[in-house]
C-alpha cells in the first residue's frame, strides 16, 4: 500500500500542497517572531521543508537534477547560512530582540491580506486539469514573496532585513521547483551561488555597520537626504 502511494501522483500532489502550506505558516511565524536567533532557526526550518518539497517533486517527476537542487538547498540554506548568521550574532553580542516598525498583531493581519492578494493574482493562472504536481503552489509562492517583502520593510535591524530577503528568495525557489520542475541546472547553480555570495556580502556589511554605527539599527542611517 505504501509502495502504491509512492507512485500515485495524486498523493504526491497532496504532499506538496501540505508542505507548501507548512512553509507559508512558518513564514507568517517569522513575521510574528521577536528574537533574532529564533528568526534564524525558523528560516532554517522553512528551508528544510522547501528541500523536502523539491525532493518529492523530483521523486514523482523522475527529474534527477531537482535532487541536486534539493541537496544544495539543504546544505546552503539549512546549514551554512544559519551557522554563519548565528556566529555573527554571538560575535556582535547585540541585544537579541527585533523591534518591528509595525506591531506584531497588525503585521500578521497584513501578511494575511498579502496571502489573499497572492491568491487573487494566481487565480487567473488556474487552468483546470493542468499536468504536474504543485501547480497551485504559485499562489503560495507569490504570498511568500509578498510577506517576505513586507517583513523587510517591517524590520529595523540590518541582520533581520537580510534574513527577510533570504526568506523572500525561498518563495522564488518554491515557485521555480513547483511550477516548472526547476530551472535548467546551470540557472539553479547560478541562483544558489548568488544567494550564498549575497548572504556573505550582506553579512560583512552588517558587521561593518555594527562597527561604525555601534548598533544594528538601520533606520538610524538617515544622513543622505534630498
Amino acid at each position, binding site marked *: 500500500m505504501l509502495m502504491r502511494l509512492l507512485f500515485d501522483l495524486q498523493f504526491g500532489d497532496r504532499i506538496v500542497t501540505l508542505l507548501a502550506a507548512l512553509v507559508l505558516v512558518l513564514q507568517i511565524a517569522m513575521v510574528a517572531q521577536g528574537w533574532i536567533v529564533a528568526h534564524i532557526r525558523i528560516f532554517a526550518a522553512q528551508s528544510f521543508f522547501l528541500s523536502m518539497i523539491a525532493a518529492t517533486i523530483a521523486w514523482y517527476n523522475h527529474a534527477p537534477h531537482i535532487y541536486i537542487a534539493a541537496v544544495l538547498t539543504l546544505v546552503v540554506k539549512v546549514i551554512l547560512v544559519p551557522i554563519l548568521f548565528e556566529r555573527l550574532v554571538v560575535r556582535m553580542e547585540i541585544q537579541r530582540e527585533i523591534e518591528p516598525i509595525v506591531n506584531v498583531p497588525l503585521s500578521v493581519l497584513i501578511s494575511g491580506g498579502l496571502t489573499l492578494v497572492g491568491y487573487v493574482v494566481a487565480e487567473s493562472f488556474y487552468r483546470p486539469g493542468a499536468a504536474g504536481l504543485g501547480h497551485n503552489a504559485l499562489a503560495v509562492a507569490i504570498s511568500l514573496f509578498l510577506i517576505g517583502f513586507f517583513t523587510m520593510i517591517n524590520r529595523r535591524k540590518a541582520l533581520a532585513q537580510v534574513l527577510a530577503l533570504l526568506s523572500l528568495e525561498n518563495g522564488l525557489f518554491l515557485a521555480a521547483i513547483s511550477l516548472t520542475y526547476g530551472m535548467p541546472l546551470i540557472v539553479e547553480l547560478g541562483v544558489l551561488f548568488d544567494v550564498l555570495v549575497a548572504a556573505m556580502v550582506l553579512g560583512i*556589511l552588517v558587521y561593518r*555597520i555594527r562597527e561604525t554605527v555601534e548598533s544594528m539599527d538601520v533606520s538610524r542611517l538617515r544622513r543622505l537626504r534630498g
Partner: protein
Amino acid sequence: MLLIVLLLISAATAAASFFARRRTVMEAANLVGFAGVFAVAVFLVAQVLAHGTVSLGNGFFYADSLSALVILLTASVALVCSTYSIGYLRDDERSGALGDDLSDAEQIAQLRMYYTLTPLFVFFMMFLSMANNLGVMWAAIEATTLASIFLVNFYGRVTSLEAAWKYAIIGGVGLSMALFGTIIAYYAGHSLAGSDAISGLNWSVLAQHAAQLDKTSMRLAFILILLGYGTKAGLAPMHTWKPDAYSQAPIPSTAILSSAMLNCALYGLIRFYILAGRCLGVEYPSHLLLLFGLLSMGVSVPFVLAQKNYRRLLAYSSIEHSGIMVTALGLGGPLGTLGLMLHMTYHTIAKSLLFLCAGNVQQHYRTDMFGEIKGGVMRVMPLTGVVFLMAMLAVVGMPPFSLFQSEFLILRAAFDGGHVLTGVLFILFGTGIFAGMLIHIGGMILGPRGDTAAVERRPWRNGSLLALAAALVVIAFWIPAPLFQLISGAAQVVRGQ
C-alpha cells in the same frame, strides 16, 4: 570565439591586480586589460556587422547588434574610467581621502580591492550582455550588483556605508522580483516543445516562439521584470538608492555605474520587452513603460531644482535619462527605437564625461556642495570648467550636441504616434531639468575666482577628460558609418525584425 576572449581578458585583469603587490602593477594591469577588452569589443562589433549575430557554445553565448552595442559602450567607458582612476586614486592617496589613519599596507589593500573589483564588475557586465539564457543573464546582473557593493563602500565612511547598504538591499529586492519574473516567463514557455532542455530559457529560442507563449503569465512576468530591472536602471519609484550610491562611490565607479550599468539594466528590460511585445502585442508593455518613464522624469525635476549637492544633481539627471530611454522604448516604432539606441550611445559619453568633471572639481575643492564652492571654477580650473559646462549642456539636450538629435527623434515618435501628452510632459520636464542644472552648475562654474588655490597638473585625469570631450564634440557632427550601422541594427533588433 571573441566572446570567450573578451571574458578571459577581464577575468585575467582582475586576477592580475589581485595578486599584484605594487600599485603601479595594478594600474598597468587595469589599463592594459581594459585596452585589450576595448580592442576585442571593436573586433566583435566588426564581426557582428559582418554576420548579424555571433554565438558560441551552441547558443549559450549569443551576441546580436544590440548586445554588441552594449558591450562596445561598456568597454569604452571602462577604458576611459581606468585611465581616469589612475590619476584619481593617486590624488586620493596623496590627500588621505582613502582613510585618514591608514598605513601603507592598508592603503595598498584598499587600492587592490578597487583594482580587482572593477574588472570583475566589467566582466559580469560583459557576461550579462552576451548570455543567451535569461536565468544566466539574471545571475550575471546579480553578480554585478554584488561586485559593486564594495565599490560604493570604498571610502568606508558612515555615509558611504549607508549608501552601500541601501544599494545592496534595494538592489537585492529588485533583482529577486526580476528572478521571479524570469521564472514566470520560463513557466509561460513551459508548454513549448523541448523546453526543459538547457536551451529552454534561451532568449533566441523564446523569441522565435514568442507568439505561442501563455498570455497571462507573460503579462505577470513583464510586470515583475519591469520592476526588477527598473530598480537596477533607477526608474522611479525604485530610484531612491541612486542618488545616495552615486554621491558616495568613487568617481570612476560612479561613471561606470551611471552609464554602462544603466545600459545593461536597460538591455535586460529590452530583451523582455521584445518577448512581451511579440507575445502580448506592443500595446500593453508600452503603456507601462510610458508610465514609468514619465514618472522617473517627473520625479527628478524637483530634486534637480532644489539640489544642494552637485553629485546628487548628476544622479537625478541620470534618473531622468533612464526615464527618457524607457519612454523611448515605450513609444517604439522606427523613430522611437532608433532614438533610444542613439540616446543610449550619446548618454553614455555625455554622462560619464559629466561625472569625470565632477570628480576633478570635487578633488580640488574637497566638497561636493554648491554652497561651499561659491562659483569661480572656470577661473581656477579653466579646462575642467569649460568641459563641465559643455557636458552639462550636452546632457540637458542643447542642440549643438548630439543628445538633442536623439531626443528630437523620440519626440517625433511621440507626436507621430499620437502621444501628444507624453511629448508635452517630456518637454516640460526637460525644461525644468535644464533650468535646475543651469542655475546650479552654471552658478558653480561661472563667477569670480575667489581665494581658492591654483590647481596642479593632472595628466591622467585631464587626458581622459579631453578624450571624452573630443568624442562628444565629434559625434555631435559626424557619426562613423559602421557605428551608425550598428546602432540602426540594434534598433531593428529592438523593433523585433
